[in-house]
């Protein structure tokens, strides 16, 4: 015991456990180290997938063959999708910031199952490795798109099975993280932290974790069935054996639509943390935000059909799904109103996390409004499977999850590393990234309205103009991303040291812990008496 008390004075970055060096990290059951492990893994794969995206945009800068052939292009957008969805944004915020800050924010020493938590990361890495083998084995990399739609996924000679198995394994990691978080939130809240005194980021993690638990098995079994169909010849979805390819789409989207909320809900939580701090104000409508998060998680489970409006479903189903889709728009609208109201009469502090948060609200609104156009039946028929959809989901998934991820990274950076990032570089990176983002994706709305389908390697000359703008935007945005990443990586090693427990003046519990936090976070577990965000 005495040894541990000693080590609890050192920061989690420095203490020496049973293992030294790299082993002290990849075998650590400390939630903070695991959070950083996820962060570094994601940084690597985000870079890979972002470069794939950039190459695709460069290919599309002019019609015809510019830098690659169609086979390469199709393999690239498949890999871009698989990495971005299954490896980056689905685990994204929960795995990195949930792991790191959930225990800190609710006043716990760790998550409920630390060993399971480490196992999740290992399963995650194994899943990634399996996915990667698909690139180097068999008859070429997968070319189905990340959706693996039947029956193309049985017919293509490409090496689909490892990608499916890898995604299945990644799903396992996601489920285990979800179980861990729900138990942690139920069992390990600090004394006095009633449910309605819990900060909003843990609340959104709670809603997210439930979706992870209840939706991920659906994709698991779907991918497994596809694997069996491909390897054993079991007839499930193959129309040649009597199966229904549309049923595959049902199962796929029963998971993948809620997965969108796995991606965006924690992002909403992050924004709900940052805005009050930088407005010096209590969050507006705390209960409304909590309720709307739970409502999104629940209703979001029953709207999957809006990904299939032109798939050949019955008209009755289209009607029902469109109606439910419009209902799920409301909780998101409520959140936006509450965020704006939080700024009202505040004392707004212009710093990098705040810029990210405000720009999040803006791009999230564009993403949401374009979603309304897609939820409406008449317009969806025209816009479905066009670049409009590509723009829409990048506004939500990249604009939403991506912006909130970067907001969270800047917001919690000093707590995580005990160092400050360079603010002027960070702000410049944000500005370039934001401008590039808009230039990249706004023209895609136009292209979609003009009728350019998605997953197009080549296009008719009439679509050329907007594609040039979009491709240039991609280059600009990658430039911005490079500045941000280089700045943060540099600052994490050489940035100005700080032991300030609370550099931004936050009111939630994590700002009462040491900077950077010690192994077990607290000498004494704090007692909670007030609601979060009680600015006077």
């Amino acid at each position, binding site marked *: *015991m005495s*040894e*541990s008390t000693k*080590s609890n004075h050192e920061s989690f970055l420095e*203490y*020496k*456990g*049973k293992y030294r060096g790299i082993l002290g990290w990849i075998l*650590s*059951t*400390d939630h903070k180290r695991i959070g950083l492990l996820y962060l570094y893994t994601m940084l690597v794969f985000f870079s890979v997938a972002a470069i794939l995206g950039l190459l695709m945009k460069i290919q599309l800068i002019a019609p015809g063959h510019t830098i690659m052939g169609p086979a390469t292009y199709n393999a690239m957008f498949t890999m871009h999708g698989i990495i971005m969805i299954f490896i980056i944004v689905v685990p994204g915020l929960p795995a990195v910031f949930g792991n790191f800050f959930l225990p800190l924010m609710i006043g716990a*020493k*760790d998550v*409920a*199952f*630390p060993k*399971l938590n480490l196992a999740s990361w290992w399963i995650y890495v194994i899943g990634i490795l399996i996915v990667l083998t698909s690139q180097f084995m068999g008859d070429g990399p997968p070319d189905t798109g990340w959706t693996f739609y039947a029956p193309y996924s049985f017919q293509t000679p490409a090496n689909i099975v490892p990608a499916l198995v890898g995604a299945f394994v990644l799903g396992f990691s996601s*489920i285990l993280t*979800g*179980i*861990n978080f*729900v*138990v942690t939130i*139920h*069992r*390990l809240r600090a004394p006095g932290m009633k449910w309605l005194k819990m900060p909003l980021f843990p609340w959104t993690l709670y809603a997210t974790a439930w979706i992870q*638990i*209840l*939706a*991920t*098995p*659906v994709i*698991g*079994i*779907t991918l*497994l*069935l596809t694997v*069996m169909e491909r390897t*054993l*010849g*079991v*007839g*499930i979805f193959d129309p040649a*054996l*009597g*199966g*229904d390819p549309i*049923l595959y789409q049902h*199962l796929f989207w*029963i998971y993948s639509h809620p997965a969108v909320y796995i991606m965006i809900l924690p992002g909403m939580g992050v924004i709900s943390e940052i805005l009050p701090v930088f407005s010096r104000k209590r969050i507006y409508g705390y209960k409304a935000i909590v309720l709307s998060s739970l409502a999104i998680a629940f209703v979001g489970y029953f709207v999957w059909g809006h990904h299939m409006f032109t798939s050949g479903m019955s008209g009755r189903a289209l009607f029902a799904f469109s109606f439910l889709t419009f209902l799920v728009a409301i909780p998101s609208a409520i959140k936006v109103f509450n965020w704006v109201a939080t700024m009202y009469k505040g004392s707004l502090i212009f710093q990098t996390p705040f810029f990210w948060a405000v720009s999040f609200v803006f791009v999230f609104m564009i993403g949401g409004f374009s979603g309304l156009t897609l939820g409406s039946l008449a317009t969806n028929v025209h816009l479905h499977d066009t670049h409009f959809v590509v723009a829409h989901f990048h506004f939500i998934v990249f604009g939403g999850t991506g912006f909130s991820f970067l907001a969270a990274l800047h917001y919690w950076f000093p707590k995580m590393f005990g160092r400050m990032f360079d603010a002027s570089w960070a702000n410049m990176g944000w500005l370039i990234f934001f401008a590039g983002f808009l230039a990249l994706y706004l023209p895609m709305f136009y292209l979609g309205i003009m009728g350019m389908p998605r997953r197009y390697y080549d296009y008719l000359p009439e679509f050329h103009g907007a594609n040039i703008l979009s491709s240039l935007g991609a280059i600009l945005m990658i430039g911005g991303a490079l500045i941000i990443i280089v700045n943060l990586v540099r600052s994490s090693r050489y940035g100005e040291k700080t032991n300030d427990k609370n550099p931004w003046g936050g009111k939630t519990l994590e700002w009462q812990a040491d900077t950077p936090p010690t*192994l*077990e976070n607290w000498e004494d577990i704090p007692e909670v008496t007030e609601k979060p965000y009680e600015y006077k």
Partner: protein
Amino acid sequence: MEKNAEHTHVHRDDEGDKLGMWLFIFTELLLFGMLFLVYAVYRYRNPVAFQLGGEELDVFLGTLNTVLLLVSSATVAMSISAIQKGLKKHALVFLGITLLIAVVFLVNKYFEWGAKIEYGFYPGGEALLELGHGTILFFGLYYVMTGIHALHILIGIGLFIYVFQQIRADKIHSTDYIWLENTGLYWHLVDLIWIFLFPLFYLIH
């Protein structure tokens, strides 16, 4: 816990462990739930083929396996009662019976599958592919669903062996039996799934 500078306070929370197990069970329920959904859709679309497919299966073997699983569920529940009362011997006996039944279940399954495979009634098998689409789907689902269920039985057997040894070594005892309790919950889940698989494949004509 390992002698590691990390997490020196040994944190024990049986209620939390049980909650975790329940959450895992929910995951499993949804996983099998989706298989039931696939089954429901295809049965709805191919009613006659599914009816005829069901008649091919051996009701006697199915019923036998159902009763076996129900008994094993009861014995595992009894072994929990026993350990709670501190009756180590009883607990071991009940657990042993459960383990034995699980193995017998798999043996039955082996004979059942074996007979069908011999006729060429397996996915991709020639005898099966000659039949109609509905029948291919029925037997595809039959193998997938009972197969994944059998996989869960196998995992259950592994868990039982581990728990059995832990009880023998007095690692699991009347004040710390969460491993046994969670294993029991898992086993009831396996039973729960079978309760639905049985009528869907063997009974409904």
